């Protein structure tokens, strides 16, 4: 590990100013940053510790929506009764993520900004070519082992999966990311790799996430997160789906639905085609399975990840059925 300077920010303004320096990196729970520093991917010159900033870890759940401070830990948010009741998909996505130890350290703000688990990205000594890590060097994953790589939203420059769970739930629930400068719709927050895979979000240098706002909607209160993987715990998703579902008073007609997928795309992936195909339709297994097929429209396999194209629609369908009470 290389030497770096460390400063503990006492105010948001100070943190933002310090963060504007090239080579500066923000530190929250450190579970992504230190991990990447150990594998020599992150080489910060200066680390700015946000954890002592006041007022950034509160969780407020009100009638119109919830606001979760960026420094709230994953475990605190997952254990919050208000979140569990009104936004079950958020609580579930957090509980199914990482391990208890990591959740106790990791923050919500840091969680959104976790980096891909692409093994080539994480191994600069073995694989100098990685556009995401070192722009313009190429992509080692293409033509390599791609079991965990994306089938949606890829480009010729990068096929890395966005690995997080929480952001998938937030996409389904239409959350907004608040920063020290502005509020950003989650849909607009994450970027596709295109020709610039090194840019993963719209955040500017010196911009700091302060909170996540989630609107209170009937479908948020009836939401769920389904995560599929080989290991029962402590593993990223092979495919996952977050679903918010609102039924008409008849209990069978779908009034509104929002669906997002994880583990299969380069960013948290809204499945708008699935939503459109189901809005106003009856909730039954055949209809749901049929509609869920469109979740992978446009998907492209790179060999080892072909199974995801088959798996994802099943995960979507089962998540919708689960939200609709059909086990």
């Amino acid at each position, binding site marked *: 590990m*290389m030497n770096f300077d460390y400063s503990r920010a006492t105010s948001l303004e100070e943190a933002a100013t310090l963060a504007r320096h090239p080579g500066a990196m923000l530190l929250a729970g450190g579970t992504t940053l230190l991990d990447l520093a150990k594998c020599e991917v992150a080489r910060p010159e200066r680390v700015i510790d946000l954890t002592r900033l006041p007022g950034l870890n509160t969780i407020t759940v009100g009638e119109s929506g919830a606001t979760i401070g960026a420094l709230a830990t994953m475990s605190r948010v997952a254990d919050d009764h208000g979140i569990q009741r009104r936004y079950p998909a958020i609580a579930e996505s957090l509980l199914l993520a990482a391990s208890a130890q990591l959740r106790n350290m990791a923050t919500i703000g840091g969680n959104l900004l976790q980096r891909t688990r692409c093994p080539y990205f994480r191994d600069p000594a073995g694989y100098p070519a990685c556009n995401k890590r070192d722009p313009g060097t190429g992509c080692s994953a293409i033509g*390599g*082992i791609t*079991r965990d790589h994306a089938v949606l939203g890829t480009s010729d420059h990068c096929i890395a999966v966005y690995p997080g769970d929480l952001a998938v739930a937030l996409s389904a629930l239409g959350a907004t990311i608040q920063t020290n400068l502005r509020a950003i719709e989650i849909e607009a927050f994450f970027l596709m790799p295109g020709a610039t895979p090194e840019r993963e979000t719209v955040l500017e240098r010196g911009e700091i996430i302060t909170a996540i706002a989630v609107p209170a909607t009937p479908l948020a209160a009836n939401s769920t997160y389904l995560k599929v993987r*080989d*290991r*029962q715990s402590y593993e990223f998703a092979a495919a996952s789906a977050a679903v918010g579902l609102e039924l008409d008073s008849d209990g069978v007609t779908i009034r509104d639905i929002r669906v997002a997928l994880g583990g299969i795309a380069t960013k948290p992936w809204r499945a708008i085609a699935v939503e459109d195909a189901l809005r106003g339709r009856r909730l039954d297994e055949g209809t749901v399975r049929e509609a869920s097929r469109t979740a992978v429209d446009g998907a492209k396999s790179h060999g080892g990840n072909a*199974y995801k194209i088959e798996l994802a629609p099943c995960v979507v369908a089962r998540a919708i059925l689960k939200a609709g009470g059909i086990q």
Partner: protein
Amino acid sequence: MTLIEPRVKHGDASDGTTPSGPLGREIVRTDGPLKVQGAATYALEHQLEGLLHCVIVQSTVGAGRIVAVDRSAAEASPGVRLVLDAGYSLMLRSQPDFFGNKPEGDDYTPFATDIHHNGEIVAAVVADTLEQAQAAAQRVRVEVEFGPVIATHDDPRAGHGNPVPLDKDWGDPDGALAEAPVVLKATYETPREYNVPIEPHGLIAHWEADDRLTIYEPSQWVDGMANHYATWFGLPFENVRVVSPFVGGGFGSKGQALPHSAVAAIAARMLRRPVKLAVSRPQTFTAYGGRPATRQRLKLGATEEGQLLAIDHDGSNETAANAAFIETLGIVTSMMYAVPNFRSRQRIVPVNTVTPGAFRAPGKNPSAFALECAMDELAVELGLDPVELRLRNEPDVDPETGKPWSSRRLREAYAAGADAFGWTQRNPVPRSMREGRQLIGWGMACGTHPVYSSPGEAMVRILADGSVEVLSSAIDMGTGTYTILAQTAADALGVPVEQVTTKLGDSRLPRAPVAGGSQLANLMTAAVHTTALAAREELIALGLTDPNSPLRDRANTLIIADGRIAPPSGEGISIAELMAAIGRDVLEVTRDTLPRKERSSAERLKFFTTLGGMERGTSIPKSRHSFCTHFVEVRVDEDFGTIRVSRVVSALDAGRLYNPKLADSQFKGGIVMGIGMALLEEGITDPRNGRILSANLADYRIPTNADIPHIETISVGIPDYDATLLGGKAVGELAIVGVAPAIANAVFHATGKRIRRLPITLESLM
């Protein structure tokens, strides 16, 4: 009275009776409190004055030749004391192999010039702090001429491999297969697997004088390792001390001094300062090898009634491009079932990997995977219950050697396991059992492990206060050696177990062979039992004859029980009182279980520092093995292909259990590892450069608690005094054998899909 009373029953917890003495009791591990309090000092925690830190630099290509190493930038780095590479390092003498044979070539260096695998050590940096060494290691520039890489045996260029002399033949397998009414042919594969002990490898090397080396290193075999260092540096064996009181798991990987071990010892020698080298978790994946990938083709011929007529077995495993490692794949195949016609062949396929190594029941485990899956396939083919098929082929004698079994209680295991599991409720039709969207599968398979035996040596010290010390260089890697040796000594001496302390893991103590092959518990209880009986004899003799003994002339026989020495009827006195009366501070006895006395000291040493002492059964009249059978339930999601093991019942015949509680942890640990092997563990290598992509514990998946269901273990063993002195059989590695095929068979029952390549992941079922 004879010194050794092998047939005295000291209690047998395995058949449900309460043991009369401490041996056989469910005593909690004596090293537990130290470990939970953080007071057990592991190798790298030893504090030494003036300690320097060493970091290795590994190759990042899979094959090639090093053209140049530029050390200058690293040497100029802050805090750096030394930068080593093949061109700048002490030359060592070659290390002998496990059997004590000297390899060709006189010299050895741990630093590569020709690269044979990705992650080979090319250089090392020593600095004042770990961080300085890490930073400088980044600055070592290595110029490489790339060579063609054959990453795995899946690469067609790897070819068919080279035969190894493990042929086993009897009868006429070709003729029998040609005429067999039912023939099954299938190929089974297991991936590379890694040992991943929770304590990564590393050491502190400390030259206390120019010719005296002390090594703090986690070790499954301190005497073997001391011999390695002694040979490398041309020192007398006695001048090397290896200290390893606690080991955070080894799983086969801590039996030898490894290349990085040589690096630290060289650095310490050149700098004349103690040097610590910690292998990082990613580096552990290439600093030594785990189980090689294996491939086995099996042909089974049988009658319509399920009588086996022939087995034809052809196995191969990956090995390193520059070294041979044999995973003995035919080892279970040849002794599990009665079969009149048999052939087994084995090959090794060189690829660009680190030399594979011993790993969790080497040979036995993959061997049983292929055979036990094939037996299940045969049962399906014949429409027979898999237990019934096995019962019909249960051999009365060892089919390979013709010798009688010392004990083989597999019939009892089938009965007990099937009963506890509820096996008769099984609908044999695949996909016939389900709960909601979960397909339920019930499968079973068997496992076995040979009983190896080597000699051991121990010292027993009776101290003035009546307490007892047991000393041996044997190790405890969480397996329970400390505890069962205290129990053994207490049992033989007649003192409460709380009065006994055990000291282990130091090559200055009386000798012990490798803690491998599941042999240590049996051989060391035998050595301690022998020694403790001798100590008891001596104490009794003193009690009867010492002029100052209060018991002198009071009786012509004395008994020691509960820490008191007494005539058959009468009060007697405590051991401490006797020691005080006769004016002794300590009574010290050392004994061994070497086969014949009067051996030269060089020969004695060879017994403990090579595998030469490991009796593989040739001269022993009985065939000695442990056995087990596993019954498992899996739930497979019909949409996702995810597999959850929801129930395991295992019935095990491991002879007498010296401490059923600790044996049970070993059994359960084995079953947990078997679940990992079946469903999760896989070293993934990039075919383009032979670099492992899963070199961390997030990507190299071992089971978490959430993956492990309730496990029920049933011991069906009885004391087997033909197997070992005190009646135990192999425990440690037994239970992993057979778990993976039981799961694969259950997956077939659940889904109707036969997966013959491990691990069975969700995409293999989609």
